[in-house]
Structure formats: C-alpha cells, structure tokens
C-alpha cells in the first residue's frame, strides 16, 4: 500500500445472479495520474465505477481511497472523502438553474453561503458554463448538461475525479475541447482522474496509463501506446462476442 495511491482495488468481485460482472479485479491509481479504463460493452466498467462510488457493494474485495478502506460506504460518504463522479447518462437537476445545481456541489466543502457561491462560480467559469448560470437545466442540450455535471462535480473540490464516458456523443471538435479542459482541470486543481471511455481519440490523448477490462477481468495495462499494440486487447475488441 503506497501512500501515493489515490485509489486501490484489491480482489474486487461482483456477481449479478449468474452473471460474473467483475472477477478478482486489482487496480491502482496513483495521485496525480490520469487513468483510462477501456473495454468492450458489458466488460464491467460501469459496475466498477458504481462499486468505487458506493452505489453497489462488492461480493469480495476491498476498495481503498487515499489509504482508507471505504468498502461498503454510502455514496455521500465517499463523496465526502474526496470523490466526484459524472454519470454515463447525465443526471441533471431539471428543475434547478445551472447556478443552483453547481451550488449543491459547492456546499459539500463550504458551509458558508458566500464561500459556496464563490466556489460554484469558479467551477462554472472553468468549465465554460458561467454564461448559462441562470438557465434551467431542462433548457440545455446534452453537451451543455455534461459540462454542468462536470462543473457541479468540480465544485465539491474532489481529489479523485471519475468520468463515465464524458465525451460520448460529442463531435470531434467538442472531444478536443474536453481533452483540453480535463488537462487543465488536472493541472490547475491537482486532481487525480479515472475515466471510462470508448472514444479512443480521447482516452489515448489524455491518459497516462490505460487499463483494459474484458469479461470483468483486467486483461492488460500500460501506457496508451503499449496497450494499443497489445494483441490481446485487439482481440477483445474485434474477435468473438463482447462481454454480454
């Protein structure tokens, strides 16, 4: 156990009935790293995210966050320990304005209303949604909602930021913009990033390290160039059937 580890997964296994979603997954993310998690559909990536963030409990194994065993804690407790997460399908607060949405995140760390407002404004400006602050979430399109979701996550001042397919459905130009934004977030806020993605352009450009999941198991890891030339990985993506 390294004090430089933001996240450690030890022997994580999870079954849904007869389906083995994750089998003995071991993984570590070091502080300051950007780690990309890739794999075919159904490989278990979102399940893994849900386990780390406390929405699901693993059948076996432990989750350690900054040295602390957080296995089995509730999502809000995990959030309080410095984890923020965006969702694969955005979960906006439709009846709230963008400002109010991001404010909810800010209140995690800032008890005082003025400080929370400041924190929210910083997050909105960083992600470029400040000009939308008084619009209601139900008026926005998907790319905008993704940015708002990112802003509200950032307002919690996370140490570990988890992005679940954040560039899915974006145009190449938007993907590049998001790449630059995530790099900026990592540099300016010093967060560690763990992301799940299908869009290779994004993952390979931004990750320091890539972990490949297939059928609930880690089949490869390494630098982006190492992984993309790895035969097993190519097979997983091209050959046979994808994991359920």
């Amino acid at each position: 156990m390294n004090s430089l580890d933001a996240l450690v997964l030890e022997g994580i296994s999870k079954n849904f009935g007869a389906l083995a979603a994750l089998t003995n997954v071991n993984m570590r993310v070091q502080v300051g790293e950007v780690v990309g998690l890739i794999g075919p559909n159904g490989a278990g990536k979102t399940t893994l995210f849900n386990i780390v963030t406390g929405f699901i409990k693993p059948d076996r194994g432990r989750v350690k966050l900054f040295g602390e065993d957080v296995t089995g804690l509730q999502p809000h407790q995990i959030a309080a320990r410095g984890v923020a997460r965006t969702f694969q399908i955005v979960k906006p607060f439709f009846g709230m304005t963008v400002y109010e949405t991001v404010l909810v995140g800010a209140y995690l760390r800032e008890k005082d209303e003025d400080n929370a407002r400041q924190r929210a404004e910083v997050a909105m400006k960083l992600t470029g949604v400040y000009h939308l602050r008084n619009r209601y979430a139900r008026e926005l399109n998907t790319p905008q909602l993704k940015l708002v979701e990112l802003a509200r996550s950032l307002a919690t001042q996370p140490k570990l930021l988890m992005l679940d397919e954040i560039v899915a459905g974006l145009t190449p130009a938007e993907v590049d913009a998001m790449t630059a934004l995530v790099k900026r977030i990592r540099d300016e806020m010093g967060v560690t990033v763990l992301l799940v993605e299908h869009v290779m352009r994004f993952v390979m450009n931004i990750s320091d390290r890539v972990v490949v999941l297939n059928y609930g198991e880690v089949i490869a890891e390494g630098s982006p160039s190492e992984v993309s030339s790895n035969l097993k990985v190519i097979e997983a993506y091209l050959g046979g059937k994808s994991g359920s």
Partner: protein
Amino acid sequence: MKTYSALGAAIALAAVPFLVGLNEYYLFLVTLILLYTTIVVAWQLIGGYGGQLDLGAGAYHGLGAVVTGFLMVNYGVSGWVGLLVSGAAAAGVAFLIGYPSFRLGLKEVWYALSSLALVLILQKIFLLWTDVAGPLERYIPYAEFDPVFMRAGTKIFYYYITAALLASTFLIVSRIRRSKTGLYLISIRENEEAAEMLGVDVRRYKLQALMIYSFIAAVTGGIYASMVGFYHPTLFDSWISIQTATLAIVGGLGHLLGPPIVSIILLTVQEYLRITLGAVIIGLHQVIFGIILVVIIMFKPDGLGPLIDSLARRFPASVRR
C-alpha cells in the same frame, strides 16, 4: 420591498376577524381554513422539496389533537405544553416510520401507501386504547378565557394563534428554501443519485423535512382540539392527508406562494359548497376536489404554481420559488 408585502399580508390576516363581523361561526371556518393551510405549507418540505408524496398528514394532525387533548383533560396540563409534547410525539412517530422507509429507499407509491396506512393504524389503535381515547368523544374543560391553559370560549382567540402559526410556518419554510437544506432537498427531489454523489445524505435530509412538517401538523391538531373542545380518534382522518397533498400539488410543488393561496381559495370554496349543497348531495365538495385534482394533473402537472409566481412578479416584492 419585500417587507411591504409581508406587512400587508400581516395586516390582512389581522383584519380578517373584523371583516367577518366577529361572527363566531365564520371565525371558526376561517380558523379551520388557516389551520389546514398551515399543514399544506409545512408539507412542502417533504413533498415539494423532498419529493416524497407523503399521505401521513392525517396521522400527525390527529396525534396532535389526541395528545394535546388528553394532556389537557387528564392532567390539566396547559394546551401550550400539549402542543409541544404532541409535536414532539409526532416527530417521534415520523422518525420511527421515516427512518426505515428512507434507509431502505422506499419510493413513490410504497412510501405514499405506508404513510396512508399510518393514518389508519393510529386511528384504530386509539379507538381501542380506551385509557387515552376510545370510541367516545372526550371533552376538554371549558373556560371562558384562559390563555394560560389555552382555552377560550370565543374563536377569535384561536384565530390569532393560528394566524401566527401560519405566518411562522411560512417564514420557516421560505428560510429553509433559501438555505443549504432547501437546496439539498430539491436536489434530492430532482435526482437522488446525483445528489448523493455530491455528498448529500439523502436519508438524513428527508427525515429532517419529515420531522419538521409532522411537528407543525401536530400543532394544528392540538389547536383544533382545544378550539372545538373535544377529541376523538376520527381526527386521524385520511381525508386530511389527501386534502393536504391535493392542495399542495394544485398550488404547485415546491412553489412558495402558490400552495397557501390556492389552499385558502379552494378551502373557502369547499366550505361554501358544503354549506350550500352539502345537505343536498353529501360529499359534493369532495367530489369537486377530486375532479379538480384529476384535471390539474392531466393538463397542468406543475400545478398553478408557475402561474401564481408570474403574477407575483408583477408586484415589486416578488417571492419567487
């Protein structure tokens, strides 16, 4: 600017008894309307902000009446103390039923059903519990004017207590709305999972909202019992639960001004219908309620809140949602 409209509302409230010519019967009706409106305003915490369709108002209101009445009758305890004790009792019951419900993530229909079941369970329990209530009405000792005991012969006494309660409840709810708690509650209503991921302890906030609202609902019950001078298990009335939720929804979930305004108007209309047509067709006033609810949900699911808000914006002091 906001203080002007608040002042105006306060003056209007204070003037009402004189507007009805100090008629005892009308004072009774108006007080009753304000009591039920108070429950509606408090209900916003769990229903409008928390997003749970709670049908337990009848349970808490009834508990307030029975506990306050019991203390006044059997122990000669002042009604004021009775209000506090019954409020605490209601909050306690709310905790007992809310804690497991929220812990286990009971949603929507199941929460609504279990809160409705609570009303009926309490009614039957108190029907059987003859030491405290039982099937016969229990009368609270009469006093011409005893403010310490909280009992009076004239309804104007209760009117001002109720008006003060309504005003305070409104202030409390609007304070909460603007606070972190209010924001958290609305985030829970909008998307629980997202809220949780932002560090919101969903269960805790729902429970808080439930307990505050149940306390206030109980207080209305206690005032009612003292006003009519008796209590009985039929005060655990599912109609109060339904009426409260209906008025809050029609008034606009989560809106501040809509529910109380709609409450006062519709409750007045209901009383008018009951007086004029009630003898002819029993329950007609409630039928109208049912129709209004169905129509509003089908055509204006957000209730009348947005409409009232936009009207309110015409006035200098807008108390928006």
